[in-house]
């Protein structure tokens, strides 16, 4: 069944009494896409993911999984879902094999398919050596891997991972990232994290949630390119400021170390870079460096989660 969007969520809200954990969140996920949900602790990431996974009913809003409504036909919708909650949902008294076989049959895998699915999931998550051990005796990192294996064993169209790398050591984190990237080629993946580099390392698109609201949603590639306000220029010979100021679009100039200047543009959207290059050529300043100062995801994240989110949202 081919649908353009694997997940389509509209206006998801969730209230606990008077507390609003998630407010009017809409998102969509295409096949072959990895979407990162970023936000400080308690921002509403887990609540949003629970609603997407059908574990929590939204107070308002709808979720379509692979074209099937999660509210109207939960069984069919959930067949295309793999979900790893914050706490890996494992049974400590079962062995890894027993547990994963159970998960496979819960998701309706036939007996004949189970062995192959089990082998593949264990291989993907590096669990082959611990197959026969009891989950309760495994380390936190291994339990987390069992949780991920559980979410992908039935090859769902959508994989939802809530903080998948918590409790893992650096090498395991790299392995899991590689696994997530591989998953992202065939499936759609949503993962949450409060760790920025993680999102930057694997996600194609990022959404920042703050106080239950979606405050930022952009492809990662463009996270830096939109709306720069400052330009860094380096010259061999320092130009006269009044000449530089007369270049259209140039607002203020601040000298930096090593013959560099930071130029603030007059209005957001102005791009005086070409004009500066022309002026440099005309006056023989010896231009050696010229680039827009880009806002990194980190700056955006810190700004959004410390500053007034609403004002920023309106400005964006």
């Amino acid at each position: 069944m081919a649908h353009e969007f694997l997940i389509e969520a509209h206006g998801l809200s969730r209230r606990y009494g008077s507390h609003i954990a998630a407010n009017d969140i809409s998102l969509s996920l295409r096949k072959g896409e990895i979407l990162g949900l970023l936000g400080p602790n308690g921002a509403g990431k887990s609540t949003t993911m629970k609603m997407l996974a059908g574990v929590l009913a939204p107070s308002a809003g709808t979720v379509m999984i692979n074209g099937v409504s999660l509210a109207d036909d939960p069984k069919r919708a959930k067949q295309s879902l793999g979900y790893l909650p914050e706490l890996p949902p494992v049974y400590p008294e079962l062995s890894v094999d027993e547990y994963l076989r159970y998960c496979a049959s819960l998701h309706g895998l036939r007996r004949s398919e189970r062995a192959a699915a089990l082998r593949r999931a264990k291989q993907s998550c590096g669990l082959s050596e611990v197959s026969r051990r009891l989950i309760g005796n495994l380390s936190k990192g291994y339990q987390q891997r069992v949780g991920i294996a559980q979410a992908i064993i039935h090859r769902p169209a959508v994989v939802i991972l809530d903080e998948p790398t918590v409790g893992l050591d650096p090498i395991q984190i790299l392995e899991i990232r590689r696994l997530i990237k591989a998953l992202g080629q065939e499936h759609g993946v949503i993962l949450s994290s409060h760790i920025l580099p993680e999102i930057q390392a694997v996600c194609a698109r990022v959404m920042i949630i703050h106080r239950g609201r979606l405050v930022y949603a952009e492809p990662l590639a463009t996270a830096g390119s939109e709306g720069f306000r400052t330009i860094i220029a380096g010259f061999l010979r320092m130009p006269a400021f009044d000449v530089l100021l007369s270049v259209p679009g140039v607002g203020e100039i601040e000298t930096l170390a090593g013959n560099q200047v930071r130029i603030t543009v007059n209005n957001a959207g102005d791009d005086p870079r070409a004009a500066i290059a022309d002026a440099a050529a005309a006056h023989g300043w010896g231009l050696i460096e010229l680039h827009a100062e880009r806002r990194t995801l980190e700056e955006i994240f810190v700004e959004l989660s410390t500053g007034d989110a609403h004002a920023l949202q309106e400005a964006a």
Partner: protein
Amino acid sequence: MAIVLTIARTEARRIFVSPLAWTVLAVLQSILGVVFLLLILDYAQNPRGPESSVGLSDYIGGGLYSFATLVLLLVMPLLTMRLFAEERKNGSLTLLLASPVSLIEIVLGKFLGLFAFIAATILLLAAMPLMLLVGSNLDLGRIAAGLLGLSLMMMALGAAGLYVSTLTREPTIAAVASFGLLLMLWLMQVLSSQPGWIGKLLGYLAMVGHFENLRRGIFSSVDIVYYLLFTVLFLWLAVLQLDSERN
């Protein structure tokens, strides 16, 4: 339906790989073994003639089973507390909730898994009186009626405990609360001696009364239906509770 059996199988396995079930069975067997022995000694010391209305099956089987109900009342909450409360506490309940499985299937699966434990208890309880077959003439019908009554009663106790288990995330609270609920249902029997319709109503609602008939070898469909209704009611309440939790 196949998924219910899948869940039941895993639940039963989880019950029996945990030391709790074995400990419970061992303690149960020791206590009931002592009671059984005392009953035999008592019967041997006060032999009743063939004209007596209380036979061996009645005296020993019946006596053992009526004592067993009391012990089971204490034991069932310990097993039912795991079903939902403990799973909720360690987060594993999400596995079932996120799977393409309906709440009814989850509840039925867990209940059937619990039934494996009930069956094991019944086997142990059947073995003791049946040993007497070697040297005596047992009324197998009576023993069977008693065992049927016990299984029905355990089902009812289990269903009530399962429901209470859905209400909380603390296994100990689930155990204490279901124990309280079961004991209340038990005590209704005492109040049923009150005159008038209240006494009659309470007597009808009380759990023990219905067991009493079966223990005495009276197979009446009213008692069977009582236990089945009781079980279905609490399983249904559990489904409703789980559903309201999602919302």
